[in-house]
């Protein structure tokens, strides 16, 4: 819009800036910023726009041309409904592009940055000790999300499907420093009569905030016969603030619809430990 007005005035960018200043533009306006605004790389502050509009009017630009610079303030759209289809498509696009993330390709470097050399080595040891392969986890999540888009991935909750947790409560609570790393190890027991196959844990809520830890949005659940148990690993980066937080996972089918009632709760408490070097 501004570009069109400037072009109609047959002014170069420096000349246009001078034109605005000569017609009463207050404050600083550089040719570089004008260029960025015209290219869509930046906005002016509202107050600057008001000044620009006043200067254009004072410079003889027709009011009808200038009116377009004063649109109605846009409003916030409501959040879309969080349906199983929405969730599946949202996380499928993310899973598809994750392999090209430089952090994903260099997880060790990420650990080094957030936790230091000692813990990079320890994390690596833990992964080997428990046979955790991030690439295999991602491949399984992608397989499940793709399956969820087919009739074979659509699940129906069955009566008699039940989850029980093994181990005590302390296994699901981590106390540590702010932004510290945690690896949760949780054993889920298939306490019902339904075979678990092609299932995931889906984290409820925002992926990370100043008060909420960062954990994977989806964690695949290994196939588990009734009466048997499976082991789940949830890597976590504690929250930024000194606070108590809870992470909640529900169990879903490949199409991201719920398969069993209840949820897994994991606590991260950064209140008691002062951050130490």
């Amino acid at each position: 819009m501004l570009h069109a007005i400037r072009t109609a005035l047959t002014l170069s960018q420096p000349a246009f800036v001078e034109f605005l200043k000569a017609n009463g533009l207050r404050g600083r306006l550089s040719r570089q910023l004008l260029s960025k605004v015209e290219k869509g790389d930046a906005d002016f502050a509202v107050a600057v726009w008001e000044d620009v509009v006043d200067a254009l009017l004072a410079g003889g630009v027709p009011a009808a041309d200038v009116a377009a610079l004063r649109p109605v303030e846009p409003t916030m759209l409501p959040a879309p409904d969080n349906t199983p289809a929405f969730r599946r498509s949202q996380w499928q696009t993310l899973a598809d592009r994750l392999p090209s993330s430089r952090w994903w390709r260099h997880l060790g470097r990420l650990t080094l940055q957030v936790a230091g050399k000692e813990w990079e080595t320890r994390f690596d040891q833990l992964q080997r000790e428990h046979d955790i392969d991030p690439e295999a986890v991602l491949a399984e999540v992608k397989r499940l999300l793709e399956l969820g888009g087919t009739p074979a991935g659509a699940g129906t909750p069955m009566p008699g499907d039940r989850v029980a947790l093994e181990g005590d409560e302390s296994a699901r609570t981590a106390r540590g420093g702010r932004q510290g790393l945690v690896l949760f190890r949780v054993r889920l027991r298939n306490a019902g009569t339904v075979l678990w196959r092609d299932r995931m844990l889906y984290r409820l809520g925002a992926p990370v905030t100043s008060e909420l830890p960062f954990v994977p949005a989806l964690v695949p659940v290994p196939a588990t016969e009734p009466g048997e148990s499976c082991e789940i690993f949830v890597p976590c980066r504690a929250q930024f603030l000194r606070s108590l937080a809870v992470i909640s996972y529900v169990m879903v089918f490949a199409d991201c619809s719920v398969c069993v009632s209840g949820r897994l709760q994991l606590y991260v408490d950064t209140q008691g430990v002062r951050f130490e070097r």
Partner: protein
Amino acid sequence: MASSVPFRGRSMAKGVHHLVATRELTALMRQIRSATGDTRAQSCAVLNATLTRAYPNLPETSPGSRYSVPHQVTTGYLSKVERGANATLPVPEALRAQGMDERSDAARGSAVPPWLVWAYDVAFGADGFLIDAYSWAMALLADQQHNPPRVTRELPVDVPGGTEDDHFAAGFQGAPGHIREVLRDHARELRERAARPAAESAWVTDPADESGGADDDADNPNGVVVRPGEFRVVRWAMRNAGSVPWRDRWLYRVWRPGIGIVTPGFVPLPDTDPGGTAQIRCPFRAPLRPGTYRMCLKAGWPNGVYCYPGTMLGLPLTITVPPADLADCHEPWT
């Protein structure tokens, strides 16, 4: 091996202590975008796809106008918005009066277009959290335009005598007895405070006035899953870590009433001597619409002036209202 392995985090580079509300918002936007592992170029592609679905006639570049209208974004644009360098807002008068260098990183904050916040929320799976945080940022930004920064929305003096109970009960129709009891206690506190002489001369910020942080409510930790419309009371224990006695203080909700979690506009911060601990109770009602929401309470005097104008969040609580199809998730597995 222990079932959870805690790691001690490494000391991070000291972050910028943001002073402008929208900078905190853009930092949140960056945090959630970064959590996807995307590069800015990938983020741009995802955001533009999201925006194009919402606005079919999306222009390729900004048409340039008083209010930023939806347009396709570039990596340069995202970088400027996230760093608080786009459409830079003037440094609030109160900060300038304290000698804040308006060119410093801490003082920088952008005008953030709502359509971009919405697109971040949808594209990076923020579950409505950024949309809610936008309302908080706009409310705090409005408060920061005053010198000193202060709440103007709803003050204790605005409540006519004799209507205290009705005031606190607004928005809590149908609340269970224990919630109504807390609301009645707050109304009683308001009546008692209104009856005692005001010591307005003490209502000024003081560097020796410090809050030593707060202990969170184990029943309502951050991220707690709440049913749509559910009533609860969140409790905090807040320590007076400075040398200034806390008197006549309220905890003001920073919000746009009608959006997000429902709370009273203010709840009492009990009088507390230095070294003491204040027990705070804030009733709230969860939104009906699923999503992740945050409420923030900031300490202030009865005239609305914030006791700690240089802090952003105050006492925060984040809650999650699960989607309707996952509503049967409220009982934790055992």
